[in-house]
């Protein structure tokens, strides 16, 4: 059955002297315009119609959606394709289609408002002229690398021919998104206009191009481009530098950017059509790889979780108790996303600091996107010393320091002040919700809302359902997380919930490794070598030693069978060596960012005798040990019921604490290795390093029964 048309074609009424066609991308069934097999056929028909109408002199391609132009290929359909050749065919069909667009003798103008990524940008590149709006939601780029793929609709061939190799390399390998003005400077778009003027400007351009009064902008050919990019030697230097940079950043774990570089280099001196032809096979090779499959699966599960929260009613007014780093940034982003935010602080000094933090946040945003898009947000956030007005809030988030007594006091006060419909949330990173709400009269409205720092970059919100928390409270918190632009994952209450619990074991293993004699750099390097974006010590320095210590203290109390507190960390905190905030932790962090951090050698004396002999161990061995301790604890979280399903665990692990994304998360990782092999490996680790590596009961059972986590259902383990 044919799906309803994603495209609408409208012609100017007959009689107009020069008529244009408007091709409107607007899939009526879905919120996103994506390219699938049927939609491609429609484009085909539309192109022939436009070509056939003699009076029509040109066309404008514009989206009917308010927030994006077009997304790329439909990733949801990728799962059904298993054969490499099918992916090649898919790529070739898109390439042919776009080639027909670019080969049209009538000018086609892309009118871009909102997100224009991947396939959407490739379509725009195939047009003869591009106009983008200056709205902050308009961003352009290639994000294929984030799902282990490369552009395959001619993007790798067309982009460098338009804006040069150097900029293309950076856009493709880093997956950077750029705004319209920057795109104009690079030559990626021809004009930048206001959203209101987009349609008019696109029509003008199409008519002018048709009359020959305007030509498509020639590619930028600066001096450096001619000197470096137009000769084989220069190109070789450029590409080898790019490869070195990619390898440094990805530790060779992610092949897609390297493949993209390869395709661009091989296509650099070929005809356009030959260059485009290189993309299909390379794309297909990546699309069937485990890495890409893992990344795509992760992406889809993440969007499933966002989609589930999208329909829930978001709060309109949010109170934040505590204006520290987290509270202030939370308030600022809340306001930026259109909600009203009010911060309560306890002293004038702290309030002033909180408001200054918020102001700095907006000043920074203002520099980026322009004050007119920030002014409204500034007016939606305020601060005060009391709880005046909190009774009218939809959601109040506690973000005070991690002390149980303090948090209890705050909740008692909030419970008294706020009307019963107000949802109360705690931003604790490890304290069980139940322990905080013991004295509260309405515990059903209290929910855990664990956000990660730096908030503006971290994509996860861990939502914690306490034993008495109502579904309404969970929904309110999920809707809020979605409104912030984050992905909510709901877990059950318990010490450290999911993310902090796993992270605690990860930290603890790292501290233990250091006590054995391994060096900080070796351990952090080992973690990065297997795909963790940050090593454990760098991570402790980043979240703060005091926070890490508080988490470990909570966990050690609860899991004393396999976790004990390393006294070294406590000594570090007592000495004020809590990481980046004080400039010293496991590393020395110079205030000037460019100086770079270095390991603080004096740390070791707190953790091991001076004669401890570092044991030689490869990066892989050190990294694997850290990964396994984390994955094993994730499995226990599933077994304990903290996690509702393995997919939740995978998404939260990658987004929350940086579990190697190429593995798709701990559960998918274990499935890939094979559960039996995992049990064996864990037994071997337990032998050498103790009970925290003991294979979890659930893992053993599934391995015994030849099951996988992919096939796991909650009912199963009740047996």
């Amino acid at each position: 059955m044919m799906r309803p048309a994603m495209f609408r074609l409208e012609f100017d009424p007959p009689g107009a002297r020069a008529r244009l066609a408007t091709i409107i991308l607007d899939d009526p069934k879905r919120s996103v315009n994506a390219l699938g097999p049927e939609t491609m056929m429609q484009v085909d028909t539309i192109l022939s119609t436009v070509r056939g109408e003699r009076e029509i002199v040109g066309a404008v391609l514009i989206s009917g959606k308010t927030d994006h132009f077009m997304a790329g290929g439909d990733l949801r359909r990728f799962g059904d394709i298993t054969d490499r050749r099918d992916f090649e065919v898919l790529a070739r069909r898109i390439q042919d289609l776009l080639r027909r667009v670019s080969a049209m003798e009538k000018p086609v103008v892309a009118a871009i408002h909102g997100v224009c990524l991947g396939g959407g940008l490739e379509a725009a590149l195939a047009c003869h002229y591009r106009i983008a709006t200056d709205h902050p939601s308009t961003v352009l780029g290639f994000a294929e690398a984030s799902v282990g793929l490369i552009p395959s609709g001619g993007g790798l061939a067309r982009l460098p021919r338009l804006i040069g190799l150097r900029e293309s390399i950076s856009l493709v390998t880093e997956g950077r998104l750029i705004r319209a003005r920057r795109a104009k400077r690079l030559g990626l778009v021809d004009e930048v206009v206001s959203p209101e003027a987009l349609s008019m400007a696109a029509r003008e351009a199409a008519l002018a191009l048709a009359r020959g009064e305007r030509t498509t902008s020639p590619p930028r050919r600066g001096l450096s481009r001619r000197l470096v990019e137009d000769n084989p030697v220069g190109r070789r230097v450029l590409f080898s530098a790019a490869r070195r940079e990619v390898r440094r950043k990805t530790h060779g774990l992610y092949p897609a950017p390297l493949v993209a570089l390869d395709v661009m280099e091989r296509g650099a001196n070929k005809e356009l059509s030959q260059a485009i032809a290189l993309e299909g096979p390379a794309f297909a090779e990546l699309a069937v790889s485990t890495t890409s499959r893992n990344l795509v699966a992760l992406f889809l599960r993440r969007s499933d979780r966002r989609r589930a929260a999208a329909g829930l009613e978001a709060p309109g007014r949010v109170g934040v108790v505590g204006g520290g780093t987290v509270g202030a940034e939370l308030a600022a982003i809340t306001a930026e996303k259109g909600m009203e935010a009010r911060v309560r602080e306890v002293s004038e000094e702290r309030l002033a600091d909180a408001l200054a933090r918020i102001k700095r946040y907006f000043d920074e945003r203002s520099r980026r996107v322009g004050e007119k898009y920030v002014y409204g947000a500034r007016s939606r956030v305020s601060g005060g010393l009391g709880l005046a007005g909190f009774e009218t809030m939809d959601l109040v988030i506690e973000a005070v320091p991690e002390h149980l007594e303090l948090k209890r006091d705050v909740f008692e006060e909030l419970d008294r002040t706020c009307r019963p419909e107000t949802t109360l949330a705690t931003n604790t990173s490890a304290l069980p919700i139940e322990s905080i709400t013991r004295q509260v009269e309405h515990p059903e409205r209290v929910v855990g809302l664990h956000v990660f720092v730096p908030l503006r970059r971290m994509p996860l919100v861990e939502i914690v359902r306490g034993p008495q928390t109502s579904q309404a409270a969970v929904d309110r918190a999920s809707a809020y997380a979605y409104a912030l632009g984050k992905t909510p994952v709901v877990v059950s209450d318990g010490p450290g919930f999911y993310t902090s619990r796993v992270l605690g074991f990860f930290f603890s293993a790292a501290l233990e490794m250091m006590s054995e004699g391994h060096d900080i750099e070796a351990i952090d390097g080992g973690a990065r070598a297997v795909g963790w974006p940050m090593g454990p010590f760098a991570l402790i320095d980043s979240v703060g030693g005091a926070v890490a210590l508080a988490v470990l203290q909570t966990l050690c109390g609860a899991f004393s069978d396999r976790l004990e507190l390393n006294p070294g960390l406590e000594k570090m905190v007592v000495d004020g060596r809590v990481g980046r905030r004080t400039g010293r932790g496991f590393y020395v962090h110079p205030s000037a960012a460019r100086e770079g951090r270095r390991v603080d050698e004096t740390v070791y004396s707190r953790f091991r005798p001076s004669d401890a002999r570092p044991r030689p161990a490869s990066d892989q061995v050190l990294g694997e040990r850290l990964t396994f301790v984390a994955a094993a604890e994730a499995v226990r979280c599933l077994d304990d019921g903290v996690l509702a399903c393995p997919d939740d665990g995978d998404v939260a692990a990658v987004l929350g604490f940086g579990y190697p994304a190429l593995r798709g998360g701990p559960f998918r990782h274990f499935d890939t290795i094979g559960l039996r092999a995992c049990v064996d490996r864990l037994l071997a680790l337990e032998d050498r390093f103790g009970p925290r590596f003991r294979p979890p009961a659930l893992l053993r059972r599934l391995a015994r029964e030849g099951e996988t986590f992919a096939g796991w259902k909650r009912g199963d383990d009740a047996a």
Partner: protein
Amino acid sequence: MRPRKTAPYRKVWVVSGMRTPFVRPGGAFSNVTASQLGALVVREALLAGGARPEQVEQVVVGSAFSRGERTNLARDVAMGAGLPGEVVAHTVCDACLSFHRAFADAALQIESGRTDVAVVVGVESVSQRPLSLGRPLARALADAGRAQSLKQRIDAFREVRPRDLVPAGPGWANLISGESLGESAERLAKDYGITRAEQDAFAFTSQVRALTAIEEGLIGDHVVGVPIHDDSSATVVTDDDLVRETSTDRLGRLRPSFDTIRGSVTVGNSAPLADGASAVLLASDAYAKAEGWKAQGALRALSFRAVDPGGQPLMAPVPAVAAVLDTLGVTIDDLGVWEMHEGFAAGVLANLRGLSDPEVCRRLGITARKRVDPGQVNQWGGSIAFGHPLGASGGRQILSLLRQLQRAPEPIGLLSSSAAGGQGAAFAFEPC
């Protein structure tokens, strides 16, 4: 738009109110704009009242000259406070009665059933008061703007003299009498025989009462701190910094400001200018009750009156007060709390004297009332102590009046104020 109740006449409740500290011009608020101050108090008044921004239908801002920086300051204030774009906002001006005018505007709309919820704001940034260019320079700039050639542009400035480059502040002198209100006060003191000692004693009492009220925590709950950021530091300003300890001795040593030979009006016994803002949330009693809002007080009556500015312009509150008393059919004895604007101690003392003086009252066309002891008014201090951010003072008066009514319920509280140009206002409130 929510459906209107069509009751012909409804009570106006003051649901909540907040003000900024009143601060010396050129001091802590030097770099804060009038609209920022206004936005802050609007938001705080709403939070204090438990109202949501989308419940507000109207914002009325009163400002004596800060409105000069913008064509509609109220709109900036409303948007700055994060109110929805659909909220209607307008700005009114009536010198020191600007707040009162804004209040009356909103209150009449509520009484007549046209509006349910409104925020009334008074705001003044004396530090950032608009300065205007002299006529010759302004004309030259306008001509230059229209010039078609460089020569015309240069020619446009031919008539401009160096002294024309000095900008001018707002004019204080009245066009008819040619005198400033300070000069009027000086004349008034002589006319009514109000001595320097009486004025200084009154000013001293105002300072002492203000200090006491602050120390007893009577003021703080309706004053909100203003966050001030500069490149290096962030603070929250919470103190009314003009209130000070003084003595009649010290006040007595000040030189008269307007008549250096026989004068009695000094900076010590008149209100110093200040930066500040105040806001109150008004609602119809029906709407407020339905929302479960509490009232600080309800409006009973209001009156604006004017007198010949060439006569004694500061006497204008007297007929306004008489009108309010007559409307309510009450006497001086029924007034439990009386807040009078202290532009000049001489003005307050002359008003009180005049109200009981048959001859003065005859000239004003009203009947004389019982004599009022000046010690009865402004129990928590007045404008001489707190300072006078022209358009924002009315808000301070109302907040102070209503708090006093709440603490010791009396049937009626009265508020009166004078303004440049010979205008006066009086408002009566009852506790709820």
